[in-house]
């Protein structure tokens, strides 16, 4: 199964530079339909506005963290099945466990490279 490169992706990070880096890396992977949010609550609002095929979110943000966003997404009947990848500098085992328990589909530790991003997206979306 191939991944639909035109599906809308929402990237969430409070560092605008990081949003730009992820957006550019996604563009190189030919994902061009990318929206941005700078914290969990803004992301949740966008997710409720239009359907997204994937959420790629940082963890450490205010006022709503990536984990809180993940939990809110999984608790919302309309959003609960949206694939969710966490990209974060939080690399402790307990963090990964907490994210898994909350229903994250995959987890990327910063700093990361394009190959890792590509691989994880393919794993989550079931394509190559």
């Amino acid at each position: 199964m191939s991944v639909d490169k035109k599906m809308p992706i929402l990237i969430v990070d409070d560092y605008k530079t990081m949003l730009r880096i992820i957006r550019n890396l996604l563009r190189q992977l030919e994902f061009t339909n990318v929206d941005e949010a700078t914290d969990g609550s803004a992301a949740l609002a966008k997710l409720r506005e239009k359907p997204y095929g994937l959420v790629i979110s940082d963890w450490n943000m205010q006022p709503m963290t990536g984990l809180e966003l993940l939990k809110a997404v999984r608790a919302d009947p309309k959003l609960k099945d949206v694939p969710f990848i966490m990209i974060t500098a939080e690399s402790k085992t307990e963090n990964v466990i907490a994210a898994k328990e909350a229903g994250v589909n995959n987890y990327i530790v910063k700093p990361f490279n394009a190959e890792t991003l590509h691989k994880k997206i393919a794993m989550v979306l079931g394509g190559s």
Partner: protein
Amino acid sequence: MTRQTTRDAQESLEQFIDRRLDSVTDISQGGQLFAEVVKIIQAVLERVQTQVSAKERRIAEELETLAGVIERAKVDVESVRPQDIRAHHLPLANGELGAIASHLEEATGKILDTCEQLENIAETLPDEARDKLLDCVTRIYEACNFHDITGQRIKKVTDTLEAVETRVDALLSALGGEPPRAEPAAPPPPKPPSDEDLLNGPALPGTGTTQDEIDAMFG
């Protein structure tokens, strides 16, 4: 003194100490903690001297030693000049960290601008050259991850400095002083700068001399 009289005397002494110590909680919120503790110890000593037994006399001596230790600690702490830490060193460190974060943001932004221009140029090249150039650009994007990681590390240091600031405020309050406003310490009297004095590192934004101003100095 009968056993009953002695117990009565001890009880009243304990009640006296309890009552005075209870008042410390209120006083400590407004400062003067050390001074008040010393006062209490002196008051207890006076009481003990009028109701003395051998055991109480030993307690009195220990309290006297304790009062001395507290006084010396107060002098030691004051000699470290915690006001300078609060008023000068911590704001300086925070300012420098803020400037680092700002320079990183600016530099990363310029790197990304350039990468995006390179990507546009790559689209005009033959396939092999295009792919090679895009691969290089990808490596640069990956390396720019440093910005986020460094930013988070700076935030951690800033949080730590805030915690230090809070503790210094508590210390100043306990010593009986008011936490000073974040104003720089009084400047030292003017003297010709030594070579070492000239090594201040980069100036914070808005505090240094601009290139235009330097150019103007050279006519």
